[in-house]
């Protein structure tokens, strides 16, 4: 069995929407399990799902992203109606995909800034006052998100060879 694949072979493996979607759903599911597992074990929530959608927005197509984002909404919406937080959760990855052509390539720094900006904007719009209640809140929401986003980005970049 072959374990080492060339760059061209790697791209071929993930050509076709079904393969990209499969990978996208796998990453989304892993992010979901990680988010809820973190809560169970560490009694703390990290927004792995939002971060995974921001990073995946750099690699997937518009329709594929809409599907994943709506799946995230279905999984995370904790009320019968749409809340503002869910609306921001829906908008932020869509903004990334809308403007990704303007981004300077698939650089790690770009991804870092996107994840940081995305998470900070999310909390700025949904609950701005919490950043003033405790100074520790800023690193608390941003550092785990950025670390996860970077790991995910570099992993996907190797797979897609961008």
């Amino acid at each position, binding site marked *: 069995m072959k374990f080492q694949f060339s760059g061209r072979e790697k791209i071929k493996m993930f050509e*076709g*929407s*079904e393969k990209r*979607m499969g990978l996208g759903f796998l990453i989304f599911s892993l992010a*979901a*399990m990680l*988010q*809820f*597992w973190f*809560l*169970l074990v560490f*009694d*703390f*929530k*990290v*927004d792995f799902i*939002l971060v995974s959608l921001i990073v995946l927005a750099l690699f997937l*197509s518009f*329709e*594929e992203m*809409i*599907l994943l984002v*709506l*799946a995230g*909404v*279905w*999984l*995370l*919406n*904790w*009320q*019968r*109606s749409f809340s503002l*937080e869910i609306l921001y959760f829906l908008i932020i990855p869509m903004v990334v995909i809308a403007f990704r052509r303007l981004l300077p390539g698939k650089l790690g720094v770009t991804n870092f800034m996107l994840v940081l900006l995305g998470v900070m904007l*999310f*909390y700025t719009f*949904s*609950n701005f*006052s*919490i950043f003033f*209640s*405790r100074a520790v*809140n800023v690193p*608390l*929401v941003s550092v785990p998100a950025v670390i996860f986003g970077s790991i995910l980005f570099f992993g996907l970049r190797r797979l897609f060879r961008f």
Partner: protein
Amino acid sequence: MPQKERWFLWFLILVVLALILIKPFWGWQLRRFFSGVDRVVDTNSSLVLENQSLKSELLKLENLKNYFPSKAVGDNYIPTLIYSRYPFSLKDEIFIDRGLNQGVQVGKAAVIFPNNKEGEVSGILIGKIESVFPETSLVMTIFDERWSSPVGIGDKRIQALLRGGNKPKLTLMDKEATLKDGDLVYSLDAGFPSLLPLGVVRAPHLASDHLFQEADLEVGYNLNEVPILWARKN
């Protein structure tokens, strides 16, 4: 992208949209599955499976029984099931299955009765009703960063301010007050029934400004494992 794939993706998008609008409960159940709650053991034998299922039901009922008060609390509280929890950081809200039509009111206390002991009638304050809909309500808990309420400590009724968060904190306590681990903390908020317990003091220390004392609030329950809470009617 080939046209067929695009059409298929849009079909899936419509399916998920329908699930969001018509079956949000399935999403909450899926989240509970991801959270590792309510795992069902699958077996080969139908008899063993039925036995496991019955044991699981019995366990759920036993678990639920632990969250009912041992004595009648009258018509002052409405029992509610917890549907789902706020999924993002720094805010802790609970969505419950009772609302305006069942008598739930904004601002009223939300309590639990985690110990089925004789004499346990006051319950433990875990939050307040934040907003009410016809059949459901949102509860803000003391683990929410936005929570802030006056509390008293011990038999000397030392006054403090409870600040919410992942680890709720007792702040603005008199520097000269004598505090020790295990002192009872109870609510002094005028909007709640008097002296509702919240938890106990843990690790009292001088605040960084050296003007007041601070401490952690230790609670004797895990909110993620609580299936029922009681909403105060009046």
